[in-house]
């Protein structure tokens, strides 16, 4: 067994167990941390496949920025405890079974596709920053520009949504509703 094979299995095991940790851990913060760990292991996979740039980006953007945002929000809401009363075990089992069944279906289908060329050979150039830059700014200039539109709309949207408006309250005021919900809980 080659070294990279050992690394692959190791990383795969880590990925899967961390992913399971995300969905199974009771504390939301733990979930976030597990997710970050997943991202790290995925970055390891990227490195294995000579996608060094993506590996870095994944860590910086995902693990660094996005997940921190998640964590931040969680902290903000003070949700660092189990907020989900585990009442519906059946439903959860059903969820897991559905996920598993879907996985099995997909595996069964894609098993038949014969694609056995090796993808970890340590020789490819495509993952280098230079190549990617060339592609991104020549062929993919349109999507690149469009992503700015996407970000703009996300920005505007986040502002519209998150900003506290100073408006006269309508009849079904927020306060009443939150009170109602408090009562429900």
């Amino acid at each position, binding site marked *: 067994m080659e070294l*990279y094979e050992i690394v*692959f299995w190791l990383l*795969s095991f880590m*990925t*899967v167990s961390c*992913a399971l940790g*995300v*969905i199974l851990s009771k504390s*939301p913060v733990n979930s*976030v941390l597990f997710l970050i760990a997943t*991202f790290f292991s*995925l970055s390891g*996979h990227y490195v*294995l*496949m000579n996608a060094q740039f*993506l590996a870095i980006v*994944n860590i910086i*953007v*995902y693990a660094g920025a*996005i997940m921190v*945002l*998640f964590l931040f*929000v*969680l902290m*903000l*809401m003070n*949700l660092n405890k189990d*907020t*989900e009363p585990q009442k519906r075990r059946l439903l959860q089992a059903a*969820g*897991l079974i*559905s*996920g598993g069944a879907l*996985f099995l279906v*997909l*595996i069964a289908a*894609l*098993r038949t596709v014969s*694609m*056995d*060329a090796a*993808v*970890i050979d340590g020789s490819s150039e*495509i993952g280098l920053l230079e190549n*990617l830059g060339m*592609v*991104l700014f020549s062929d993919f200039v349109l*999507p690149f520009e469009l*992503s700015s539109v*996407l970000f703009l709309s*996300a920005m505007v*949207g*986040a502002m519209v*949504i*998150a900003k506290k408006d100073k408006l006269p309250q309508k009849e079904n005021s*927020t306060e009443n509703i*939150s009170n109602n*919900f*408090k009562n429900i*809980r």
Partner: protein
Amino acid sequence: MPINYYVFLSLLLFAIGMAGVLVRRNAIIVFMCVELMLNAVNLLMVAFSKYYGMSEAQVFVFFIMVVAAAEVAVGLSIIVMVYRKIHSTDINLLNRLKH
């Protein structure tokens, strides 16, 4: 490593993400599971990129991350807005709209 391994791994991640969406009730965690699904796709895409020797696929992954980031911005702000109103992020608590 044949690409099949990566396909399976990616699908497993995808399925785990999907199962997470079904199992969890905290909106933030659900959203995180969706991120997990996206990452599964990313992994698969990188594997295909390697398989076909096409750097475009990696650029595609880059864009997926961009979109994910944008969604996170919007999504978290929506969750925050809802949280402000009902002081919870439990998705099943919100069921005024039905039938």
